């Protein structure tokens, strides 16, 4: 565990930032560099990037919220995951990187009256974040399981690209280093004199006497839990798209908070190829199919034996292939944009409930996406495709794709997600928005949001770049206006 600041019963600062994921870490850094006394408070532990192997079960226990168990309830349930450690989701994710597409920004401006969200206005904020958390293309050739997806797409006349990652490649076999927050913005924040306390969960916010009072609980593994009272003039809540609305609602702040959480729900399929495509020394796959955006997008997943086994649980009778033929196998996904979900606190419980509204059209679209993904995989040379949905048949040729259902069924549908956003959207349309266009909460003095909950809707692409750029823009806006 990395040493963090001394924690005492009563603490104070000019600015408190709650949550140290991409939104919180970028915001806290800019505020500290502007000369403010900043305290960043994180519920999870402060661990080195490589404290556990990436995507291992140890990493799930150390760095994921709920040990990797998160569930959006509804007629079609989504199993989702989030980070819970210093750096938040950036520590556990693959760092696939995009700037926000223009069509998405245009939709947010139109539907939420969000100001200043033009690509050219955001460009300097993306560039500033990329100067600290570096993004790079793979050096040399991509792993075959990745480039095969692109080959399949191109054979069908569909556009496919290689995505950049928040990654600095290099070293003898290009193992490089991921550009997570604990490797980039958090050290920059500490160098600027910011204070960080980990393993401390803020449970309530109260405003009185012109200041914010935060009630928090410090609980270190193996040590006794203790209460911490924190006072600050301004606060930024950056607990992630599920926990931010939970904290605000618990504190009595409810206007347009937690009514519009969105996901990128995902279905997976495992392809078995005729030749080896997956080697133990391969770098992470990076290809994505863009042809069907904004309806749905496709890409490759991390495909080592443990994750392959997880993706094959819908086909237990073929599980042994993972041991014998994993070098010929790869995991692929299709994802689209979910219906809105509610975030609500349950009396007597600490963790919030997430309830997803039913949207048959979205489920039908995802089912169509799965069929297209299977088409691409066969065009890429797959000899068998195993859709990651319980009860779905194994496909042996493109003609089998017609056997797949036209919609995704309810509870056993194997929908998962790693992207959550939009639970407290920003903009000037007061009927829908929780904050103004720059993250300031309506009707609450000195209270700002600074994470994925602010995004007006799904990003269609991997969201971390957008979360960082918006946080950067909004923090600069607040600093320039001296928080008025």
């Amino acid at each position, binding site marked *: 565990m990395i040493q963090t600041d001394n924690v005492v019963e009563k603490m104070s600062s000019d600015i408190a930032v709650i949550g140290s994921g991409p939104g919180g870490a970028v915001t806290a850094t800019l505020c500290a560099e502007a000369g403010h006394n900043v305290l960043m408070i994180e519920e999870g532990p402060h661990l080195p990037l490589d404290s556990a*192997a990436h995507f*291992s079960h140890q990493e799930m226990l150390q760095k994921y919220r709920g040990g990797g*168990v998160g569930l959006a309830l509804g007629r079609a349930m989504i199993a989702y995951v989030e980070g819970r450690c210093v750096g938040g989701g950036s520590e556990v994710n693959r760092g696939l990187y995009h700037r926000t597409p223009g069509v998405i920004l245009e939709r947010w401006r139109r539907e939420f009256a969000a100001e200043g969200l033009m690509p050219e206005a955001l460009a300097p904020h993306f560039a500033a974040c990329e100067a600290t958390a570096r993004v790079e293309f793979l050096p040399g050739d991509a792993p075959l399981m990745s480039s095969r997806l692109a080959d399949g797409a191109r054979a069908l006349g569909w556009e496919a690209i290689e995505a950049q990652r928040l990654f600095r490649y290099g070293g003898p076999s290009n193992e490089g280093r991921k550009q997570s927050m604990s490797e980039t913005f958090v050290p920059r924040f500490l160098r600027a004199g910011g204070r960080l306390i980990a393993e401390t969960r803020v449970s309530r916010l109260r405003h009185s006497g012109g200041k914010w009072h935060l009630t928090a609980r410090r609980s270190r593994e193996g040590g006794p839990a203790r209460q911490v009272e924190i006072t600050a003039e301004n606060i930024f809540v950056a607990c992630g798209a599920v926990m931010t609305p939970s904290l605000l609602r618990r504190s009595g702040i409810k206007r347009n908070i937690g009514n519009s959480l969105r996901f990128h729900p995902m279905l997976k399929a495992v392809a078995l190829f005729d030749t080896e495509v997956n080697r133990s*020394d391969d770098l992470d796959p990076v290809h994505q199919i863009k042809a069907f955006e904004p309806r749905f997008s496709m890409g490759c997943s991390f495909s080592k034996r*443990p994750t*392959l086994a997880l993706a094959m*649980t819908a086909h237990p009778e073929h599980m042994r292939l993972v041991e014998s033929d994993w070098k010929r196998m790869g995991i692929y996904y299709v994802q689209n944009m979910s219906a809105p979900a509610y975030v609500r606190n349950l009396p007597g*419980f600490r963790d919030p*409930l997430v309830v997803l509204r039913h949207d048959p059209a979205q489920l039908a679209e995802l089912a169509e996406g799965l069929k297209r993904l299977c088409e691409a995989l066969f065009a890429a040379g797959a000899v068998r495709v195993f859709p990651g949905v319980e009860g779905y048949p194994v496909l042996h040729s493109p003609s089998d794709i017609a056997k797949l259902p036209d919609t995704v069924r309810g509870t056993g549908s194997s929908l998962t997600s790693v992207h959550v956003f939009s639970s407290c959207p920003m903009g000037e349309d007061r009927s829908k928005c929780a904050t103004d266009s720059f993250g300031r909460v309506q009707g609450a003095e000195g209270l700002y949001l600074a994470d994925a909950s602010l995004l007006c809707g799904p990003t269609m692409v991997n969201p971390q770049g957008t979360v960082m750029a918006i946080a950067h823009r909004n923090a600069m806006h607040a600093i320039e206006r001296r928080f008025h």
Partner: protein
Amino acid sequence: MLLSFQETVRALAETLVSQEWGHDVSPQISERVALYVLATHARMPDYLRVAFRFLTLLFDASSLLFRGKPFHRLSFAQRVAQIAWWERSFLQFAASFIAFHRTFTTFGFYSEVFGRDFVRRGRHDPD
């Protein structure tokens, strides 16, 4: 006969491991997989944890009527039969309970046995 949450999760994980990968799996690996599933239970959202605790005890108790023993005291063959009974149940919660344990046991098992896959080696290392 006393019901036990811990012993049931342990028995369930060990049975799923042996059922899937045979009886030669080392007891240390089975034990580590069981500990992983227990650790996941301990971390999951609190309202789900309460529901899972209740379901686990219900699962343990459901063999009392016909076999006179809780699940965690049954023989391997009897455990396999009871898992299959819940897995095929028309009650969604029963099937989901087993699916949850199967998923985490599978991931835990493959992570224990093939954990080396996660560590990227040099280009010329043998597999």
